């Protein structure tokens, strides 16, 4: 579904991605973790072409992302993305956030889009809040609307960039519950997160990044059974003691 082969990227002289290779198969959940600044966000943004790579190849559903001939708008509409800072559109109601792409990108009728949006708001447990504006919602609620916005495009895969890092602790589980349900329903997911409980529960594989390199890419059990690299173990011991 998603395959990243020898991807490298530079910001000026600074190499942010260094020969990264990994993949996410259909129905698979892959968690990406690693210290801050290691290139996780950049890697995930390269998957839907929000950032471009300088070397290597990224393929999504048979299309080469870093090929000029690929229509990135169509490709992006097939991959949902959830951001750390939610990025709901503040001038629209929660429901309209979920409707917009359906009408403008998928060309669905107003009625169809609205019905689908209501279903999705129910799925993320926010039916009563559909008419509210993002500023009237808590962070956890905003993030669930953002997930609904991504799901509205009927994506073949979802990308998450630290979806719970900006949330108060008591709201993290509401968002993780939605994500766990998606994973268990067979959604293909690439999730940058430090929520190791989530990883242990639903991830098939865990990728560990450091300084732009993919240092480890292992099945979840193996990753947590302390067989991996020293760097990954240090990182794990740090975040797991919290």
């Amino acid at each position, binding site marked *: 579904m998603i395959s990243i082969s020898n991807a490298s990227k530079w910001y000026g002289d600074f190499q942010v991605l260094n020969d990264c290779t990994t993949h996410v198969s259909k129905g698979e959940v892959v968690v990406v973790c690693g210290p801050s600044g290691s290139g996780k966000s950049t890697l995930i943004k390269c998957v839907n072409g929000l950032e471009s790579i300088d070397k290597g190849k990224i393929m999504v559903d048979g299309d080469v992302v870093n090929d000029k001939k690929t229509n990135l708008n169509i490709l992006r509409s*097939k991959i949902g993305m959830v951001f750390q800072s939610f*990025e709901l*559109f503040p*001038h629209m109601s929660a429901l309209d956030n979920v409707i917009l792409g359906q009408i*403008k990108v998928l060309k669905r009728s107003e009625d169809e889009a609205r019905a689908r949006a209501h279903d999705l708001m129910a799925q993320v447990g926010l039916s009563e809040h559909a008419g509210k504006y993002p500023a009237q919602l808590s962070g956890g609620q905003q993030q669930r609307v953002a997930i609904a916005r*991504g799901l509205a495009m009927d994506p073949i895969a979802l990308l998450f960039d630290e979806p719970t890092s900006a949330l108060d602790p008591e709201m993290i589980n509401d968002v993780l519950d939605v994500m766990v349900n998606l994973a268990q329903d067979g959604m293909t997911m690439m999730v940058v997160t430090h929520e190791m409980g989530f990883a242990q529960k639903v991830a098939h594989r865990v990728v560990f990044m450091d300084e732009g390199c993919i240092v480890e890419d292992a099945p979840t059990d193996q990753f947590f059974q302390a067989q991996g690299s020293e760097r990954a173990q240090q990182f794990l011991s740090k975040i797991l003691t919290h």
Partner: protein
Amino acid sequence: MGDFDYSVIFNNIPFLVDGLKVTFLLTILAVIGGMVLGTILALIRIAQIPIASWLAAAYVNFFRSLPLILVIFWLYFLVPLFLGRPVGSFYSVLIAFVLFEAAYYSEIIRAGISSVRSGQIAAGRAIGLTYPQTMRYIVLPQAFRSMVPVLLTQAIVLFQDTSLVYVVGLKDFLVSAELIANRDQRLVEMFVFVAIVYFVFCFAGSLYARHLQKKLAT
């Protein structure tokens, strides 16, 4: 003081109202035209299209370096030359204001666009919106909302600046009042009245702009 005769105002209300209509019409059309052209210029500059962005920047800097009165004069002589027929002072003046104001509006709108978080563009693109769609549905609505007070303030300045059309003899509010003042030899009365009218509209406008500013801040 006993010599003042303010009946000159009341006796000429229809004529003065006609002048005021010209002033308002000119202001409104120039604001609309200036904002449309200004938005296009701002979008071209922000999109960083090789030659076009440079031209848009050159346009903005060019018009911002000229006195408005000069632009009014030029267009008054140039537009008929360009079109090969007379167009009337209203249209030449309107074109002058639109071209001139667009340079200022473009800078205001560019600042408004830059104030929208970059994550918003990423979020728009991520659901598959094209760049123009992202601008149209995500960025511009947020930018305009934050810019309304500044745009209104600019419109008030423009409302005052329309009085410069006296140089080409267009009968706006000021010129109408001046005609009557000279004809009836009531200069003081008329110009006091004109000042009050300009003041009332502009002051009410700026109070409203300040109110909007406060509302936005909360």
